[in-house]
């Protein structure tokens, strides 16, 4: 079957090899999903690539891995296909080139938005407030009024949701995932929440060598749940503000603060672990052209978490203004670039797991 890119063509070749072998069937969802097909469309291959959690087990277990002449390197090729699939389905199409330069775009976005926030703080209020806001009663709202924050970040968040949803819709259609039931979503939710398939089928997964001692699952849990806790902190604070008429700042023991502190810790330790794991990852498993996107996404999360924690710790000092500018620029950059970078992996993988649950259910029923 002809394919639209060299990576997809190579993935098709590998799936033909793997489907003839099937030794890796017990390692993860990719191989059982593959076994249901004998020919693979681009959508099927993108589905398989997004099912792959990059645990690396099939590379070390494969008798045909390089240097064997059959040159079977499933994790690397699927990583390539996966990264390309994010661009292929992105909306609007004009933004797709961002993927190739995601790292640079992030750095630029951070710098520009940081500068703009600083400038805004200085221009919109008393020039001295940047270093003195911690003495004001409204604290950071002295630098940027609450309504302005809501307007800016609400708009950015709305854009992110729209663009990510449009991309996911295209991915979903291309992978032919009709007839997914609530139970399938339940199964996919469990597998995504637990990262069921990031353990090499039981013995653990691999990163820098052939020992199954990788801890990316832990780092990912810290990052993901840290992110969710931070998101929850912001949501609870919004409810406090509008529904309970309790504007920020909050004491450390109040719910938004507790959620934010816990989430911030996760969002610092998790990304640090992930960055270290990425740095040490076996060269054979890397999809090198896309590493800017991978690193950039984690770095933005790290800056978001660290600056948030910094605000909690140093919010009573003159650092409040600069830290707020850093935190807001990280969050804004995150929102604006999320549809065009690694962020979408979570949604696509969830959708791939949902289709997988549907396919397994149908295979079981038939």
């Amino acid at each position: 079957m002809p394919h639209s890119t060299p990576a997809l063509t190579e993935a098709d070749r590998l799936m033909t090899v793997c489907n003839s072998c099937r030794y890796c069937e017990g390692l993860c969802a990719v191989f059982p999903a593959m076994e249901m097909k004998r020919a693979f469309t681009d959508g099927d291959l993108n589905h398989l690539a997004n099912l792959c959690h990059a645990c690396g087990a099939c590379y070390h277990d494969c008798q045909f891995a390089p240097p064997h002449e059959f040159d079977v390197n499933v994790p690397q090729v699927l990583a390539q296909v996966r990264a390309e699939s994010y661009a292929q389905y992105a909306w609007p199409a004009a933004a797709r080139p961002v993927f190739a330069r995601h790292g640079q775009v992030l750095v630029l976005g951070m710098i520009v938005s940081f500068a703009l926030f600083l400038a805004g703080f200085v221009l919109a209020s008393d020039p001295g407030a940047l270093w003195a806001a911690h003495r004001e009663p409204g604290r950071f709202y002295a630098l940027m009024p609450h309504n302005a924050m809501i307007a800016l970040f609400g708009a950015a968040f709305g854009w992110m949701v729209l663009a990510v949803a449009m991309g996911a819709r295209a991915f979903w259609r291309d992978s032919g995932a009709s007839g997914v039931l609530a139970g399938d979503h339940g199964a996919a939710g469990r597998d995504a929440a637990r990262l069921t398939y990031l353990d090499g089928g039981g013995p653990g997964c691999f990163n820098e060598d052939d020992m199954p001692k990788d801890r990316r699952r832990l780092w990912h849990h810290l990052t993901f749940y840290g992110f969710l806790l931070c998101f929850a902190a912001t949501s609870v604070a919004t409810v406090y503000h509008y529904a309970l008429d309790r504007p920020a700042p909050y004491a450390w023991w109040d719910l938004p603060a507790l959620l934010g502190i816990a989430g911030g810790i996760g969002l610092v330790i998790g990304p640090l672990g992930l960055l270290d794991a990425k740095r040490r990852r076996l060269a054979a498993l890397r999809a090198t052209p896309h590493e800017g996107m991978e690193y950039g996404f984690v770095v933005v999360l790290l800056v978001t978490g660290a600056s948030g924690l910094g605000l909690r710790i140093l919010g009573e000092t003159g650092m409040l203004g600069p830290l707020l500018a850093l935190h807001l620029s990280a969050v804004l950059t995150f929102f604006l670039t999320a549809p065009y970078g690694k962020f979408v992996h979570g949604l696509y993988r969830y959708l791939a797991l949902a289709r997988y649950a549907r396919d397994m259910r149908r295979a079981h029923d038939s």
Partner: protein
Amino acid sequence: MPQWDVLVAGGGNAALCAAIAAARAGCRVLIVEGAPKFYRGGNTRHTRNMRCAHDHATDTLTGPYSEEEFFDDLMRVTGGNTDQDLSRMMIAQSKPMLDWIQQQGVRFQPSLGGTISLGRTNSFFLGGGRSMLNALYRTAQGLGVEVRYEHEVVALDIEKGHFRSATVRHPAGTETITAASFVAACGGFQADFDWLKEGWGGKAENFLIRGTPNNRGTVTRMLIDQGVRQIGDPSQCHAVAIDARAPRYDGGIITRLDCVVLGVVVNQNAERFYDEGEDIWPKRYAIWGRLVADQPGQQAYIIFDAPNIERFMPSLYPPISDPTLAGLARKLDLDPVRFEETITGFNAAVIGGRPFDTNHKDGNTTRGLAIDKTNWAQRIETPPYYAYPVRPGITFTYLGVKVGHDARMLMADGTASDNMFAAGEIMAGNVLGQGYAAGIGMTIGSVFGRIAGQEAAKHAA
């Protein structure tokens, strides 16, 4: 005092089981593996399961498989050509092996998709043979076993059945290694075509070797030349029919074809030569290597039609296809007239009438042919027509060294060696005089490997 308690030649399942057993008994163990690290472990890399007796169904096995049934299966596939006492001992030891091998880090899973008929008898390795091997290496190295890759045994110093030392060649030169006990677990000789020709003549030129190119039997030859008793003849081996387009070495599982029972098999004269419906895969898959080896040019063609294309496990190379029988014959370089006669003659003789079912002998036969197909006979009548060219694919050879129940080598003069042991393919001929049953090579490797390691340790103590 020798440098090592136990020296193990080879780096596959048998070698690792021996090394682990000896290390657990407190020995200092050295493994010398001829291959580089990626290719370590010879044919174990290509395996996927082992056949062990067991009393009950487990998480990964669908039902019991008694020692008696295992023995009956072995007697059937070997035609009784086995050392029955030794085989009974191995089968009895295969039971505890299921637990022991898991204690060494190996994990099992239910039988793979497309291999459901082995789900009761054979334990499949999670992640396949290389994964299993990696687990054994991690365990061995955790126990302090030293492993040296690209270290090939090139000479043995043996005196009256007593091992003194091995000379090993490696990238930096050669060295002599002394050890109190020696375990030979370095495979068959199937990659040595000259040796294969001693059994097969010029036919061997057309054979493909399914696994490692490193198994040239050099240690086997040294042992026999220095007084160890030979077992088996050079023509006996585990051979299946594999895709003729496979590379000469190391094509592994993905070049096998499970579709013989779905159609007919013809030789270069466009004639059938054996009952394709004799029994279900996997009971008879291992006879087709020898059958094809006896055909002209050591090549044959599996022929079937459109409805069967998805009834078997896919394989690496696509089938050759054509909308007409004559067109297919031309693509295969067969005489189209003769080929059509064979197929139409076959079609006319099909009685059929029963439900087609490849899980059981379905009784759909032909009648009146010189060679009838006794099950799964169905007309080859719906285009496109498909063909796979096949050649003999040698998995491993059976000629090797004679051993006793303690895996100790026996000498040609009837005495037992006091410190030389063997396990795996190098002594498989003790169990397999001929024929093969899926997964038994790994049973031989694990059971005799463990025993060899334990006995080698006892001698070294």
